[in-house]
Each structure stands twice: as C-alpha cells, then as structure tokens.
C-alpha cells in the first residue's frame, strides 16, 4: 500500500484511540498512539491475514500477538478498520458487556484476538508456541508479536528469548515498542534495560532497528525481517517510537501512559488528527 494511504489510515486510527479512551475516561492512549503507524503497516501492508471469517487457528495466515495488552485501543481500532469487526463496535470499548475489554481477551470472541494479554511478559512465549505449531503443521507463515520496552523487565521474556534461540525458532518476528517510558516515569530512571540491542544479540537473536513513525522505514525493515526468517534464528526489531505520537501535549512525557483526555483535551487532540476514513 502507498505510504500516503497508510498515513491516512494511521491518522484515523489515532482519532479512534483518543475518542475511545476519552469516552470512558480510562485506557492507555500514550503507547497506543506510539504504535499506530506500526500496526497500520502490519495489518494494511505486511501481514498475510484474513479478517473475515476470522479463524482462531489462523492456518496459513500470519499471526499477531499483542503482548503489551494495555495498548488495546490501537489494536481494536486497527482490527476494526481492517475488517475484523464493525467500526461501530469501538463504541463499546471498556463498557459493560462489550467484546472490547480493557485488555484484549478471547473471552467474548472478539475477532482478531487469539490470546488474552494484559499481565505482561507472556506474549513472546505465546508467539513461540504458535510458531512451533506452525512448524509442526508445515505452515510457512510468520508469527509476529509486539512488546512494550518496560515489559522487558519481566523475567519470562528472557526465558522465552533463551528458548527461541536454543530451538531455532526462525518464524517469529518480535517488535519492541522502544519509547523509553513506563507508568512510573522514564524507563532509564525506573529500571534501565542497559544496551537493549546487545542484550538481544547476546541471547542469540538477529536484531534490527527501525523508526516507528517513518512509514517507509517500517515497510522496508519489516520486509527485511521477513526475508531473514527461516535462517535458524529468531528476529527482534527494536522500534523507536514516541509515546503519544501525533498529539502534541501527550508527547515527551510518560504522563499519558494510562490516563485519558477530558472533553477539552480531546478536542485539542482531534484538531491535530485529520479525519480520513470517517469517525466511528
């Protein structure tokens, strides 16, 4: 898909995100805005996937697992805009009885979600499990997963990292949303990850880096990552992003990790984000 088209979709996704969280005065806009470009490129350009009918098993489809489940607004918006469910369903976000739970779940059969996430650190293992099944099934598709950088403080991530390298899980592409911020503050202050690239290298992964807000870099790096699959090594992409990207007052701070804009702030945000596909 053309870069211009992808940018239009991402702008609408960002509008969806701020409207969803503002409507219920809760949710996580910061990381959601930061990953809007990435998920747009994934679902509208890179992944081979079938929105309808949705198949839990996803045989011969690329799979995506959102490990940092708190950025559900961006996930839900992209899934809806890609055709997994009606965009009007975004109205239900975080409301009683809705399929759009605060954190993604399979409990109410929301198309596009294959695993609950929210408690951090589990999604890399899940992706590796799904990748093992694809290998057993002779399915050449790729399993993608996304993680927050703060999430890498969870020990299970590194259990999974060891496994994937030791067992040559070369059909997984993990992406790290490296925005450098977490709830309590800057990642460097809360718990530094040190040299993240070297860590992944040392764990036996092939490491790529990309700019999470440059559509062309996203496309070319994801292509490169795909070309590296099947070579006996797992692949991780460290994606530099800005938390709150696209809304000026949400950028440059960790404060919008998990708080929603009020009506006035919402209006300011929407003035910065072009409505391209029609609001839900």
């Amino acid at each position, binding site marked *: 898909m053309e870069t211009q088209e992808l940018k239009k979709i991402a702008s609408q996704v960002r509008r969806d995100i701020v409207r969803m969280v503002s409507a219920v005065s809760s949710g996580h806009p910061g990381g959601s805005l930061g990953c809007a470009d990435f998920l747009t490129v994934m679902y509208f350009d890179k992944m081979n996937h079938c929105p309808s009918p949705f198949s*839990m*098993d*996803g*045989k011969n489809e690329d*799979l995506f*697992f959102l490990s940092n489940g708190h950025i559900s607004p961006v996930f839900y918006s992209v899934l809806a805009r890609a055709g997994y469910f009606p965009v009007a369903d975004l109205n239900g976000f975080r409301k009683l009885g809705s399929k759009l739970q605060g954190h993604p*779940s*399979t*409990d109410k059969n929301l198309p596009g979600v*294959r*695993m*609950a*996430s*929210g*408690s951090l*650190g*589990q*999604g890399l*293992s*899940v*992706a*590796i*499990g*799904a*990748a*093992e*099944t*694809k290998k*057993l*099934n002779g*399915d050449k598709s790729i399993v993608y997963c996304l993680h927050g950088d703060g999430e890498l403080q969870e*020990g*299970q991530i590194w*259990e*999974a990292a*060891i*496994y994937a390298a*030791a*067992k040559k899980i070369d059909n997984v592409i993990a992406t790290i949303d490296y925005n450098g911020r977490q709830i309590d503050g800057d990642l460097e202050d809360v718990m530094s990850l040190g040299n993240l690239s070297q860590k992944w290298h040392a764990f036996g992964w092939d490491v790529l880096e990309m700019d999470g807000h440059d559509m062309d870099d996203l496309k070319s790096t994801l292509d490169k990552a795909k070309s590296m699959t099947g070579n006996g090594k797992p692949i991780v992409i460290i994606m530099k992003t800005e938390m709150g990207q696209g809304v000026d007052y949400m950028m440059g701070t960790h404060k919008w990790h998990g708080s929603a804009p009020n009506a006035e702030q919402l209006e300011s945000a929407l003035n910065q984000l072009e409505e391209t596909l029609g609001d839900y």
Partner: protein
Amino acid sequence: MTKAINIEVLGKKDTRSGFGEGLLEVGKKNKHVVALCADLTGSLKMNAFEDEFPERFFQVGIAEANMMSMAAGMTIGGKIPYTGTFANFSTGRVYDQIRQSIAYSKKNVKICASHAGLTLGEDGATHQILEDIGMMKMLPNMTVIVPCDFNQTKQATIAIAEHEGPVYLRFGRPSVPIFVKPDANFQIGKADQIIEGSDVTIIACGHLVWKSIEAAQILAEKGISAEVINMHTIKPLDEKAILTSIAKTKCVVTAEEHMINGGLGDSVAQVISRNNPTPQEYVGVDDSFGESGTPDELMTKYHIDTQDVVDAALRVIKRK
C-alpha cells in the same frame, strides 16, 4: 454383621508412571497431542513419549512460565499440549500464566502435575504443594482431576485429550496399590463408588482413596458400614453422587492429600450446605506446610493416614 470388604489389588505402582504410559498411548491415538517438559522428563515418566515422538516433544528447560504460555500458544493451530513438571511448579509458580493464557483464554492445555502433596517425601515443604487443587479449582473454565492409582491415572491421561478445554491433572510419586480395573471407563465428572455402605460416606481423591478403602475395612470390623466414593474429578463435581450417598448415610468424611482449605472437602461442603446440610469431617492437612520425611511418616504425622479416616468416620457418625 457388616460384611467383609474385598477389593482386588492388581499390583503396586506410582501414579506418575500411569501418566507416562497414558501419554504414550494418547500420543499414538491422537496425532495432535504434543508434550512439553521443564527438565523433569524422567521424573514425569515422559521418556517413552519423547522416544516415540521426538518431533512432538518440547524440552523447555527450567522455565515453567515460558512452558505454560508456550503451551497456550501451541493450541492455536490445533495442537493439544500436555505440560509436565512437579505440581508445585505446575501451579503456584505459574498461576498467572495459567490464569491469563490458559484458563481465561480457554486454551486446550492439559497441565499434568506430578509429585503432588506430602508423599513427595524427603524433598520437603518447598516441593510438597498442598494448595494446588484450591488454586486450580478456583479458575473458571478449569477442569480438575486427581486420579487414585496407576490405572486410573493412565485412563485419565488418555481421556482428557477428548475434553476440549483446560485441564489440571494431579498425580504423585510413591508406589501405591492398584485397584482400578485396567479396562475401566474413566469419565470426567463421574465419581466411582468403590464400596457400598450405609452408615457413613467417605469421599476421597488421589492417594487417600486407598487409605479410605483400608479405613472402610477397619470400620467394617467394628460393625460400621462405610460407603467409599472415589471423587477423581474435583471440578466439575459429581453432586448427584454426593447427595445420593448422604441421603442414605446422613454423614460424610472427605479425605485428601491437600490443605483442608480449598480442597475437595470444601467443594463437597458447598454441595451439602446448599442441598442437604449434613455433618462432615475433614481429613486433610490443617493449615500447615509439610517437611522432610518418608511418605508414610508424613501421612501419619500430618493426619492424612488410614487411622485418621477411621477416627473422622467415628466422629462424624456421633454427630448424626
């Protein structure tokens, strides 16, 4: 005169070996079955499956959290993963992984847990989990099974592949008498009446089923007719079997190798308090960690032995 009780003993083996044999058999029957183990292949008796199906066996090393979430992921695409490690590391260590990725996500994972309870023995309290039934039964969508002997563990291991959804299967380390017939039809959620009786109902699971049979024999010598029910499935619980029996006996003893808090006895108490309040006595560990010792010594010291079942039966009969 209460008639003598004759239960045919077919041999003596550990229940974990029943799991190992069952896993191999279910692997042959169902090509979707895969197995994961966290560096305890020998202890779990998973070697035969590994030798027969190396491509379907996943050694994950000492990383149980990764194993549980991986197993959940492996269901996507149609596999039926059986995870194997000690009961302690199958539950408490990985509760959140099970909760989010398996139970809440309704994934078809079979959590197979060995060395449960005090009868792990000399390793001591760090490994002797007595809370696992409680933790697992509290999870929505989870089925909890505690078979009583080698044959039943083998049968349960095979049966759970046909059940769509998360299962916790708990078994143990010591060699115990085998009394379930090798061709018995194991049904999840359907209790087995082992001995018919009229004075007291004894509902037991796991290793305490044999202890309860021994207790019934001692009670019979005292002229007391005890009904022994093997409640191999803690969840879903066979309420009908409980209510039918206590309608006749008017009192019940529950017996398990588990903490009294949160175990089989708690589940039985809920059923009878709602439907037919009846005196109940509990045989289980009373809010205590275990310690090192032989399995027999520990069963005696922590009051989950044959005599404890006898004493509980005598107490509860007096309360009728």
